């Protein structure tokens, strides 16, 4: 049985946020939605400040609070470790968003076509796109995935439902790695099967010390952090993230 996990090497992460970009493009998420998010943090008092970067995908917890609270079972845990959201069943109550200690959930507040990054009605744009909205839509995202056959890949399907990082379930289905992992220029993100003793993730787990975020709340996340350090109580974002529409 496969059991996926992601390893994040904080000694390598340089805060470039290429993973955030590629996640957006791969999953067609709308404005202000960052399934993969990288904190740019500082701690300490000037001039003794320290800077650090913390990639934060969905942690795909083994004891996921979001799965426990979903009233209709739209948010579910797969045996291979992925925590996914069925866009066809979700009723948009946003309880999972509140139960999640990591803040990885996003609700579709508006119609997705109204929240794209370009004004696709602009004639200069339609001249190029031919009016297709949005111009690039990943065709894999409309399929049903898994033994359970549910609509779990991609974002921005329609308004009124929740979404979050899926570990690129549609790419895993094809034997590829998640988009963020493939894109990272310094290989700070490693993805693999912890049941496979020979995978890079398993080797890292066995050889290097690692920690998980918010271990104390008991969620048993599947994302492991190597090197670096967990954010402290003093950590704060370097700039205010104005990701609000």
């Amino acid at each position: 049985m496969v059991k996926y996990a992601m390893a994040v090497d904080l000694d390598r992460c340089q805060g470039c946020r290429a993973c955030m970009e590629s996640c957006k493009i791969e999953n067609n998420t709308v404005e202000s939605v960052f399934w993969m998010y990288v904190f740019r943090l500082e701690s300490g008092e000037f001039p003794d400040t320290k800077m650090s970067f913390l990639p934060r995908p969905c942690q795909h917890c083994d004891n996921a609070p979001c799965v426990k609270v979903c009233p209709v079972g739209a948010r579910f845990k797969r045996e291979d470790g992925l925590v996914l959201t069925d866009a066809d069943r979700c009723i948009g109550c946003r309880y999972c968003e509140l139960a999640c200690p990591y803040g990885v959930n996003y609700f579709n507040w508006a119609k997705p076509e109204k929240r794209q990054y370009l004004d696709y009605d602009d004639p200069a744009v339609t001249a190029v796109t031919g009016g297709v909205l949005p111009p690039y839509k990943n065709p894999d995202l409309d399929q049903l995935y898994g033994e359970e056959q549910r609509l779990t890949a991609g974002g921005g399907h329609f308004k009124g439902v929740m979404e979050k990082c899926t570990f690129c379930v549609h790419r895993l289905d094809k034997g590829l790695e998640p988009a963020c992992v493939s894109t990272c220029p310094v290989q700070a993100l490693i993805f693999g099967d912890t049941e496979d003793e020979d995978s890079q993730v398993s080797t890292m787990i066995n050889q290097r010390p690692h920690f998980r975020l918010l271990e104390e709340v008991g969620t048993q996340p599947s994302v492991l952090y190597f090197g670096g350090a967990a954010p402290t109580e003093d950590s704060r974002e370097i700039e205010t993230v104005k990701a609000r529409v």
Partner: protein
Amino acid sequence: MRKGLTIGMIVVGIALMVISYLGLTAPWGAESVANSEPRMQFAPLVFVLGVMMAFGSALVYEMLPDKD
């Protein structure tokens, strides 16, 4: 007749509640897909009907006309 029907409704109502809660709705847990699927669809409706039947027995007790 009235007493029997009333008690019957209460018993059946509670039975429906217990059976649907413990056996037909999604099992507790967050480990697998099975925890997000009810064992029978519309099991929560059965639960609600069970509650309504149990309380509806009061209506029967008061309002069912006497046979004699």
